[in-house]
């Protein structure tokens, strides 16, 4: 091959490579542009809100179940420790509410939220001591609480109908009661099955709350 021929082949190769590179570069740019413009993202204020509520409410059920299990089986140190963690969770939920509706609303929420935990404790104590009167009183108070909680959230957010919220919280109480009953009966398999049901139900509450809040504050969460 003559020098001219080698040079020609090299030039042609360089040209081809350059053209291929340019083409690839153009394609990459178009691909990046496409990704930037159209790729969906899970990182939005609404998604963050829903995720936070899912996590906090799920944690609430888990810790409540741990507390009742410790109480039913006389593990006092554990009960105190889990009780502390449960109250920290309650404060976190209240702070989340307060971050949206103001500090005073958060404090009002905390008082109300704590009251239902006391009712669950009363039910657990009644169950442990086989005191049906105490159990029934606690259940009655929890049912009234569901209306109170519905009224609270409806007052803060008209997009959250009182009765609908009350029904969701009622189901929370009923599913948690099933966990406590199974724990008291010593049926571990049933207790954990009921716990999964109770835990998963909290996603329904989180969904309702998140949707109502996003609707109320579209600029903040939209």
């Amino acid at each position, binding site marked *: 091959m003559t020098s001219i021929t080698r040079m020609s082949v090299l030039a042609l190769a360089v040209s081809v490579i350059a053209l291929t590179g340019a083409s690839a570069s153009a394609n990459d740019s178009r691909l990046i542009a496409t990704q930037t413009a159209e790729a969906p993202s899970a990182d939005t204020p609404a998604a963050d809100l829903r995720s936070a509520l899912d996590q906090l409410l799920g944690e609430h059920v888990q810790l409540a179940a741990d507390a009742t299990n410790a109480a039913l089986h006389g593990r006092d140190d554990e009960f105190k420790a889990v009780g502390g963690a449960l109250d920290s969770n309650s404060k976190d939920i209240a702070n989340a509410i307060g971050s949206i*509706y103001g500090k005073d609303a958060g404090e*009002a929420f905390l*008082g*109300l939220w*704590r*009251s239902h935990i006391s009712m669950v404790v009363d039910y657990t104590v009644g169950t442990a001591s086989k005191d049906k009167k105490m159990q029934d009183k606690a259940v009655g108070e929890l049912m009234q609480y569901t209306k*109170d909680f519905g*009224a*609270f959230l409806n*007052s803060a957010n008209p997009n959250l109908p009182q009765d609908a919220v009350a029904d969701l919280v009622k189901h929370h109480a009923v599913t948690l009661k099933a966990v406590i009953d199974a724990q008291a009966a010593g049926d571990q398999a049933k207790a954990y099955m009921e716990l999964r049901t109770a835990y998963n139900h909290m996603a329904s509450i989180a969904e309702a709350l998140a949707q109502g809040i996003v609707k109320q504050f579209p600029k903040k969460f939209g």
Partner: protein
Amino acid sequence: MNDITLFGLATLGLALVGAAASAVASDYELENSAAISTQIAAAPTEAATIKTFQFQPKALEVRAGTTVTWTNDDNIEHTVTSGTPEAPVGNFDSGAFGKGKNFSAVFQTPGEYTYFCAKHKSMRGMVKVLPAE
């Protein structure tokens, strides 16, 4: 003049006196009512709201003689009960009242008056009464 005539005259006299007294009393009552009405109209008042399980304002400062009226804006019953859940005082207690209903209390004596909702014991408020101007 016989007894019957005297009796009749006496009765008529008594009736006339009674009518006159009644007229005077009515005038007095009217004047007094006006005075009372004027006093009521001039008596200071303050409004408070119960909303989202909060007494708003949470701490209210008023002058002695003020009537405070709470209006329930929540779709659930609340109470306005003096004292604390641990130590109710008994100065005032609205009983349960629902949405749109009111409860009023007159605060005559300077001091600090805490109160709570007997149905939702974490709900607390306070009225601070200053001496009348």
